[in-house]
């Protein structure tokens, strides 16, 4: 990197050193919570909302909103990283671990990948090993309040160790699959995996 390009006259606004090692390369910490989505915010009535685990499972399972709220929930405080360059530290959520959801199904040994699907048709794909063991949850409160529709309410997937587009808003289910299938943004030039620490932003990164 001897001939690395230097931007003439650029010093930059340095972050507080304490947080520096929590902000991945190319990201900057923000204090607000930007909203990003590709289309209008879906509105599903709670009495019509369900969450489904399907695909390569012995018996699919489906919860109504009332049933979902009775599942054991946990508090999560996590850092989130959006591919549009913002990082938000110490976000506070309440929700149900994907591990808890998977306790209700018997996974087929062939299952390798999960496609999360949402109201409005959004999908995203995540390797199965990266959504279990405490790495992901379905959240329904943010900062102590019901999750707002523009942030993915009534419930969204949160997979904090991957770029935030993997944390599907308005999630309605997880489909266990053998073969990987690109989701919405993954089909439109974004990286299939999306690890912010490796800066896997776009296809080919």
């Amino acid at each position, binding site marked *: 990197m001897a001939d690395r*390009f230097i931007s003439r006259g*650029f010093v*930059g*606004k340095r972050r507080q050193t304490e947080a520096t090692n929590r902000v991945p390369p190319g990201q900057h910490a923000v204090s607000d919570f930007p909203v990003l989505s*590709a289309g209008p915010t879906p509105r599903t009535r709670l009495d019509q909302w369900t969450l489904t685990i399907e695909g390569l499972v012995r018996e699919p399972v489906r919860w109504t909103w009332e049933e979902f709220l009775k599942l054991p929930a946990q508090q999560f405080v996590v850092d989130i990283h959006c591919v549009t360059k913002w990082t938000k530290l110490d976000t506070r959520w309440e929700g149900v671990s994907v591990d808890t959801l998977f306790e209700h199904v018997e996974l087929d040994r062939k299952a390798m990948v999960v496609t999360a699907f949402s109201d409005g048709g959004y999908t995203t794909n995540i390797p199965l090993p990266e959504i279990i063991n405490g790495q992901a949850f379905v959240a329904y409160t943010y900062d102590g309040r019901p999750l707002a529709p*523009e942030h993915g309410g009534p419930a969204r997937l949160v997979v904090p160790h991957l770029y935030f587009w993997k944390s599907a808003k308005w999630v309605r289910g997880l489909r266990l699959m053998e073969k990987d299938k690109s989701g919405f943004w993954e089909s439109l030039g974004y990286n299939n995996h999306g690890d912010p620490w490796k800066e896997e932003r*776009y296809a080919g990164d």
Partner: protein
Amino acid sequence: MKRTLEWQIAAVKSITPETPKVKTFTLTLPDWTPHRAGQHYDVRLTAPDGYQAQRSYSIASEPERRGEIDLTVERLEDGEVSSYMHDVLVPGDQIEVRGPIGGYFVWEAGMGGPLLLIAGGSGVVPLMAMIRHRAAAGSTIPTRLLYSSRTPEDVIYSNELEKLRATNTGLEILHTFTRAQPPGWTGYARRIDNQMLSEVVKPLGISPQTFICGPTLLVEAAANGLVQIGVKSGQVRTERFGPSGGTA
């Protein structure tokens, strides 16, 4: 799209003030590839000690302009990259970029219409790429731009928009000024609401291809409003930027 998007060092060809807070940076690219109107580039700044900052900026120019792109950038008060570009960059400087990026918020003349474009502030930038592309492609697809600005001085591309409108090729521009209006103004003077959306959509029929870009509150109001008045959700594509106006 599996090709890796490599960083490249662009040359700043010219810098054009658009409004007191907005400038257009014309960059010459050694490895130019045609973009699709609506896409963006990433900009990366590197300090001598290796510290880096990155941001994404929409392309304002049409893909028919070969070898260079316009990035129109608003200077944010607490900005890191936008303030550098506004305060430090001069023509002849170099700047690292990669792109074009994004495959959903895009429009090409071949996609047809009619076309409804809704902009808030500098959200007009990717929509301007679509308008310029439409003109360059000789398209006469009925197109309406609803453009919300605080004051007339905040309107970006004001003269060019007027010139394009005057070509009578089916482009209409509807401004709304939310804080201050020109003397004698009889047009819209409020934030976008469903009444306004109904009036703007009507001549385009029930479900125009719709692109909305601006601050979150405007995008939410416009996108949800359009769905409420009967535009199909799948026809509405959104892009948002800037502070969310709280985390509610």
